[in-house]
């Protein structure tokens, strides 16, 4: 026990002897604690070393080194630097050309140019998004028995990537995630950002629904408190915090901001079309305008054709009464989706009033949406979809005009699941199930007898259970003995028709065709967004010992913890009318206040952490008494205030950090540093680090030349060993199979399924999917060695690597070896390494009877297993 005590950090031995009330109450002591005290811009210390005084970051670092009798390392080599920066900013290795260009660039701003180039790369967002996804325990399934999908949630991942790439100010980034639906003008991006509240595990079949509701709210609250503010709030669910001045009442007051949020749900729950979809008012207006323009041209065309008809009849009187104004064998009354101009329907997906199928029901006055024929969900076979329909039910109304009652009508129909069709209020057609292609048939007596002259109203109710879904219907009249204008013109060689009129007709027809191509498309997408129960969330009480079935009397107000001022933040529902409380916006506005004592400190600590391998505060999600003490609190405050001054630009802060001498230090050991500060607490050297799971896989693919740099979109399924799929309770683990070229995309796009994490990620300390992961483990395990040496993935890539090298340096084994080292390690091979590689290949051939090609495949596998590939200086 004695020995154990000695290993405790000094502050800790100190802290445990502080009486509990000192640190769990709001008082002068706790208010003065480094992370609770207000954020102030510190003075930059003066240091005498000119190399370490130009950049404020360096001044702070150097001052502490000096105070501890340490000297900073010299700069790293340019090759080490660019490899460090490339992995650090983009998660990918530099190319040899990039290394050489930097090594040969003698201009004073050579390093700055490298930083600018890397920060401008879209790969920056892919790398840094993953750091954020670790904190918000990003996953695309719900966990538990069915581990069902969270549809469309990948858009949130893309949102985070885009946000980093466009350098969305960090305060906006948080604001949009917390309350992108409650801000004054929500955008599709801000709506997608609220997928933040949808990421947690969710049991569709909980033993105790009320408890699980609060499990979910607790999850949302904890991730927000830990991720954005560096406060561990979990304790407060059952009792006052035992290590921080946070009371149980503080916890529930903070939970009140989230109380209105709906839980995740099955399938379509919390999914909305965002960004000007079919339901969007501006899209509907644009559609109307477009169709009206089209109508005007059609009227002009009809008038022109009427004139042509008159002139034709004048020349050929026998044509009288036998001219049709339309093309083709049939006169289209109600065009289905396949027609060049499908008919316009009115539709709704919410149950209409009882009279919806009546002739006198005017759907256009009932706020039904407009959509062209061919309804359905993308991917449903056979149907031509012009209007997306993916809800359970559909009610639609289409109309056509008849001058007289025809004796025959030709109908077309396709449906995926049950259809009831009414003509002028009479039930004329019933179908159930699925047909996978259009069926054409003559209207039966029932249908024909329901026809009327003038406006005919077709109404339909379609119901969907599962899988694909579609509905389309068309009505055509036989042209009979009539000639179309085209036929009549061809037969008559247009004799007696005004050439100008013909030209006009031709132009109008072209205009109509062109106009069709300009038809506005819905820009909307489906997204998982946050939704609340209404404008006033249910009252929230303190749960005694965290049990939601035992409530205290008092109703919690939306107030921030007392230690941060205890202000009650009044919320008002947004003016745009969304059915939400506005509470999250009130919280978000406090979180993103420039003087919030935590927000800027927490994110700058994370930036530092991912560059230097360790945060200034080594417990990035816990800035409280139970967390670690910061080694450089004043520097952190300087960085935090600088971020606010730089308008929350993270790219500006990356650059400020990377331009420092501290960032550019070598990672080598030095006797004095190792003796006095073996843990590198004072940053006398840069911390060498292992590649993360994603970096390792991405670097491997980059080196072998197979990395597919396509960005964004639905997640990919990489090949998984059968043994791994067999661990699932369902056959094949409901794991998909992406096309070959998709499988080599960056790791951030790999499907994150809670019950089935690919070993290529899992083996190398991928973040847990259920709880915040502020710091990845960096384990070194024999299982990793087995995976690197033996797995199908590394062996296939080794073969691919060898192929690439043979192509790039044909018939020159020595050059192939050199190139392997250059590509994998971003440096030239030494002569000894070349000799060594040649010797290896020779031994493999001589002693193990391998062909030169096989032997070389072994060499490339060896290179991919090198420590130098796996670690960054």
């Amino acid at each position: 026990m004695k020995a154990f005590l000695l290993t405790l950090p000094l502050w800790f031995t100190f802290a445990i002897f502080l009486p509990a009330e000192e640190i769990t109450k709001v008082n002068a002591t706790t208010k003065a604690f480094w992370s609770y005290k207000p954020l102030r811009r510190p003075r930059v210390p003066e240091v005498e070393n000119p190399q370490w005084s130009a950049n404020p970051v360096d001044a702070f670092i150097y001052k502490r080194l000096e105070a501890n009798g340490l000297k900073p390392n010299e700069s790293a080599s340019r090759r080490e630097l660019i490899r460090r920066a490339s992995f650090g900013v983009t998660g990918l290795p530099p190319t040899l050309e990039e290394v050489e260009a930097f090594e040969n660039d003698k201009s004073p701003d050579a390093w700055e140019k490298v930083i600018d180039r890397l920060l401008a790369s879209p790969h920056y967002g892919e790398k840094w998004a993953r750091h954020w996804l670790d904190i918000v325990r990003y996953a695309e399934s719900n966990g538990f028995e069915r581990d069902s999908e969270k549809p469309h949630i990948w858009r949130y991942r893309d949102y985070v990537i885009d946000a980093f790439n466009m350098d969305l100010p960090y305060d906006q980034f948080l604001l949009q995630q917390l309350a992108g639906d409650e801000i004054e003008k929500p955008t599709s991006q801000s709506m997608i950002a609220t997928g933040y509240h949808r990421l947690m595990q969710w049991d569709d079949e909980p033993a105790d629904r009320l408890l699980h509701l609060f499990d979910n709210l607790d999850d949302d609250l904890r991730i927000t408190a830990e991720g954005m503010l560096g406060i561990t709030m979990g304790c407060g669910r059952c009792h006052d915090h035992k290590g921080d001045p946070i009371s149980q009442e503080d916890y529930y007051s903070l939970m009140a901001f989230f109380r209105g949020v709906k839980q995740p749900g099955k399938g379509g729950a919390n999914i909305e079309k965002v960004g000007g979809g079919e339901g969007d008012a501006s899209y509907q207006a644009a559609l109307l305008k477009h169709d009206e323009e089209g109508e005007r041209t059609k009227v002009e065309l009809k008038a022109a054709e009427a004139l042509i008809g008159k002139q034709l009849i004048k020349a050929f009187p026998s044509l009288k009464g036998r001219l049709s104004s339309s093309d083709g064998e049939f006169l289209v009354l109600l065009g289905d989706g396949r027609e060049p101009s499908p008919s316009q329907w009115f539709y709704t997906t919410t149950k209409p009033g009882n009279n919806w199928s009546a002739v006198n029901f005017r759907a256009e006055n009932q706020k039904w949406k407009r959509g062209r024929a061919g309804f359905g969900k993308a991917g449903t076979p056979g149907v031509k979809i012009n209007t997306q329909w993916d809800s359970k039910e559909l009610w639609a109304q289409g109309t056509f005009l008849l001058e007289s009652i025809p004796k025959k009508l030709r109908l077309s129909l396709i449906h995926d699941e049950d259809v009831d069709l009414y003509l002028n209020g009479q039930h004329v057609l019933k179908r159930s199930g699925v047909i996978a292609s259009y069926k054409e048939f003559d209207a039966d007596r029932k249908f024909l007898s329901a026809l009327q002259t003038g406006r005919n109203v077709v109404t339909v109710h379609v119901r969907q259970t599962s899988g694909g879904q579609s509905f389309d219907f068309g009505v055509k009249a036989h042209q009979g003995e009539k000639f179309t204008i085209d036929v009549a013109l061809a037969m008559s060689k247009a004799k007696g028709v005004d050439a100008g009129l013909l030209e006009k007709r031709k132009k109008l027809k072209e205009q109509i065709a062109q106009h069709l191509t300009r038809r506005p498309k819905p820009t909307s997408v489906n997204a998982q967004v946050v939704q609340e129960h209404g404008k006033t969330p249910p009252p929230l009480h303190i749960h005694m010992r965290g049990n939601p079935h035992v409530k205290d009397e008092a109703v919690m107000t939306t107030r921030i913890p007392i230690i941060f001022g205890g202000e009650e933040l009044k919320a008002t529902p947004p003016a745009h009318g969304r059915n939400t409380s506005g509470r999250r916006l009130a919280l978000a506005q406090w979180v993103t206040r420039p003087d919030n004592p935590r927000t800027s400190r927490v994110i700058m600590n994370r930036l530092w952490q991912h560059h230097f391998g360790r945060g200034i505060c080594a417990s990035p999600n816990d800035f409280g008494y139970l967390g670690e003490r910061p080694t450089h609190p004043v520097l952190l405050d300087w960085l935090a205030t600088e971020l606010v001054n730089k308008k929350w630009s993270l790219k500006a802060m990356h650059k400020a950090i990377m331009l420092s001498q501290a960032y550019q230090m070598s990672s080598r050991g030095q006797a004095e540093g190792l003796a006095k500060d073996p843990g590198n607490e004072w940053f006398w050297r840069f911390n060498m680090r292992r590649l993360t799971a994603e970096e390792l896989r991405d670097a491997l693919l980059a080196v072998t030349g197979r990395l597919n740099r396509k960005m964004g979109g639905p997640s990919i399924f990489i090949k998984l060993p059968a043994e791994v799929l067999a661990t699932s309770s369902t056959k094949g683990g409901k794991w998909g199979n992406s096309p070959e070229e998709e499988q080599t995309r960056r790791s951030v796009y790999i499907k994150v399924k809670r019950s089935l994490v690919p070993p290529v990620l899992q083996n190398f300390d991928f973040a847990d999917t259920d709880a915040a992961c502020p710091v990845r483990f960096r384990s070194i395990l024999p299982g990793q060695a087995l995976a690197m040496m033996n797995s199908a993935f590394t062996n296939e890539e080794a073969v691919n690597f060898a192929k690439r090298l043979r192509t790039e340096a044909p018939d020159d084994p020595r050059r192939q070896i050199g190139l392997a080292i250059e590509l994998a390690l971003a440096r030239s091979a030494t002569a000894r390494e070349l000799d060594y590689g040649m010797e290896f290949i020779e031994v493999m051939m001589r002693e193990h009877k391998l062909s030169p090609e096989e032997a070389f495949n072994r060499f490339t596998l060896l290179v991919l297993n090198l420590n130098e590939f796996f670690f960054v200086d």
Partner: protein
Amino acid sequence: MNKPANTFCGQINRREAIRHLGGGFTSLALTGMLAQDGFFNKAGAATSYGNPLAPKNPMLPQRAKSVIFLFMYGGPSHVDTFEYKPKLYPLDGKTIDVETFGRGGRKNKGRVVGPKWEFQQYGQCGKHVSTLFPHLAKRVDDIAFIHSMTADSPIHGSAMLMMNCGSIISGKPSLGSWVNYGLGSVNENLPGYVVMLENSGGPISGAKNWTSGYMPASYAGTVFRSKGDPILNLRNAQNMPREQQRTLLDYLGSMNQGHLGLREDQSDLASRIASYELAYRMQTTAPETIDLDSEPEHVRKLYGIGEGRTDDFGRKCMLARRLVERGVRFIQIYSGGAHNDANWDAHGNLEKNHNFHAGNTDKPIAGLISDLKQRGMLDETLIVWGGEFGRQPTAEYAKGTGRDHNSYGFTMWMAGGGIKGGTSYGETDEIGSAALPDSKLHVRNMHATVLDRMGLDQNNLSYFYGGLDQKLVGVEGAKPIHRIMV
């Protein structure tokens, strides 16, 4: 030293947490590296592996060194197996008032399904066992039965997590992770925590059942197969023979030594070099472990190996014994996989389901107990048997014998290290619907018992995460089941 009143973060957990935090800390554990000449030394010299599973001293007197958890996935019916309810037979077919909660929700009435098997008394203790387990029945004097077990959920997803990880919420480390975290493992060449699954598939939630949660992955379970390649990636994907691999490792090691030459203070580099040697040894040890052909025929027979339906589970049980012999800390074997009747989840035809699963496992489990005993290993091996819950006394549907889930009361049993054989503790009411209040136990008590017998103090074995000293048995702690302990 007494623990100060307000230390929420003392103990090994805190140090553990620090060790895994920022990179600077890892080099605290200098591995005594000698500066190498640089380049062409052969690998293996003076490098050591910083094993996260290095053995640790137990916190308490240790009664068992390894655990074999026989997981009857799906939930076996207690009234048809080990808890004799004579009054239930005559009620067969009658509708009675009884509160139940299962997949079909909460009910107040139900049609009784009388037990479908007869019970007989066995052993010196006179324990009643149903005809489902003719072999196990002969081992009752080695077994302690717990008839008053309860769990927080009667739904597979959350109940599996509860039984394995102590919480109905996902993301907590599993029992095997806690044991390995607390004790380490004595055999570097094998994983410390092994899981064997049924061929029909894994359990619901897959790897979440053997996850290390917020702890490092080194504490997670490794899926082990009793045939073919026991562990993933044990065989080279290009079928590289062992001698070739040795050559490759030698050259790799030398090149890594060259890289290390200038960085000898970086312990992770040395550790990684050594991890390759360990992996190389694992490639021999693991296949050798599963080579059951070397076992004498009479021992194989004991487990039912070679006898059709018991062959598979028999192999796994024998393999478990061999793993225990080799120092593996925690072994979990699943009886049942996938969904529905592929496991003990008898919603439809109870007889068919339980005859099948009991018939597959009875002899192998009895054989395991006998074999451990005859080798003098039973005393230091803790066997746990049970599912995530039990089953209701009433039928789920209007027709048939299927029973819905029951977490209000069910049976588990333990045997071996530190367990009092021939005992029974607790009971459910006379129809088996719920544990009687005075003897009611919770999954946490079972977990506490396992940790205690392994020499770990369940209320102080903690891991600091999310601002809290996390424990398997929860913040409020739990008592072990003293009545079944030696």
